[in-house]
């Protein structure tokens, strides 16, 4: 059965790129433009994988990731970060959120800095989704 992959991304060009790679690799792409819509789609669709951008309107990927990983019913969904924000910043921001009293969150399954090559993304999809 085809796997559902949610891409949370505000940039239209990147959304087109990711959905094309997903379709070419037999996945069903689901799209959301910010973290707020992303959380709604996660609850509605229960995707097998989430590809998440960081800097977005309304709600950032930092906050959405933290919400996902601190929700017992959603924390097992693998997340790949695809962003121009560095991994170092991402990890530090998660640590800063933890400092404010939340529980520690695990690192994402993979961290890809933009731009990503289609072959690299395809390979990662195979590795995570089988």
């Amino acid at each position, binding site marked *: 059965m085809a796997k559902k992959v949610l891409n949370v991304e505000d940039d239209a060009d990147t959304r087109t790129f990711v959905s094309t790679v997903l379709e070419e690799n037999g996945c069903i792409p689901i799209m959301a433009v*910010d973290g707020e819509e992303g959380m709604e789609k996660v609850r509605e669709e229960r995707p097998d994988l989430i590809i998440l951008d*960081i*800097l*977005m*309107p*309304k*709600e*950032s990927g*930092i*906050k959405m990731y933290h919400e996902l990983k601190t929700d017992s019913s959603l924390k097992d969904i693998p997340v790949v970060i695809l962003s*121009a*924000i*560095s991994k170092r*910043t*991402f990890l*530090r*921001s998660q640590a*800063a*959120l933890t*400092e*404010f009293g939340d529980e520690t969150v695990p690192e994402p399954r993979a961290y890809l800095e933009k731009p990503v090559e289609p072959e690299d993304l395809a390979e990662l999809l195979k590795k995570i989704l089988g």
Partner: protein
Amino acid sequence: MKINKMLFVSKFEELRLDALQSLMGLRKAGMNHVVFLHVIQRENVAMRRGIGYFKQEERKLKEIADIRFIDWAETLFEEGMEVGAHIAVGHTVPKILSVAEYEEVDLIVTARRKRGKLEELYAGSETSDLLRRTVKPVLIYNYSSQSGKVGENPFERLLLGLDWSVSPEKMLDFVTAIKGTVKRVDIIHVLREKGIGKLSKTEVQKLERENKKRLGEVCNVLIKERFDARPHLYIGNIEDQIKGGASEHRATMIVLGTESKSIWKERWSGSVSHTLANKSDLPVLIIPAGIR
């Protein structure tokens, strides 16, 4: 009233990361989310006779803005802040209004914005246009003015200019909301010199007493909230006296209320808040009467 989310509008020439960081004192007042907005002026990319739309130019300008915002966002994310960004093509004021509404921000921060001389003559400055059309508090942030850069915390010493035509309630709500970052509030009301010219000495004294009483009442509201607040009554030209008062009391920011006036009414009757927002060297925070 809460100030959790701030919209920071930048053209990159006037408000940069140092200006943004000087506003981080608002974190003590609960601010935890900053939204960046950069508006690419339509005339820089829009259609020109025989040339068409500069799609390549739009891409380039968006990329430049994106790189800058990513750099700023990394700094704020690492401090545990929530950050968002919008890069749009169009006219500045409508874009500010739509993003402020979409993101439900509590405060808009922007530099003073001017138009060409001819356009200002019939349409006023962009700053006045924004102040007329928004229901959100707006900080006109003249970060690097002729008198140098604004200090570390522009909210430290506020000069609250009260005009009884606008209820001070909303202004007090706002000041109370940013309590954690304010050290001192000087409250000033200016009696128009012209208005008292024809009055007898007794009438002037009565007027003085009435205004001092009202100022005292407002001041007491803040004192009850544990602010270091002082009332001051001045006489003269309103804009000049407010500017003078700000310098006398070493204010770091002027806070004013405003009524929504039509452009024509504003032209004829003038508006103290709009004039100061357009001319003051200090940051000017405008709280609209119809604040939402």
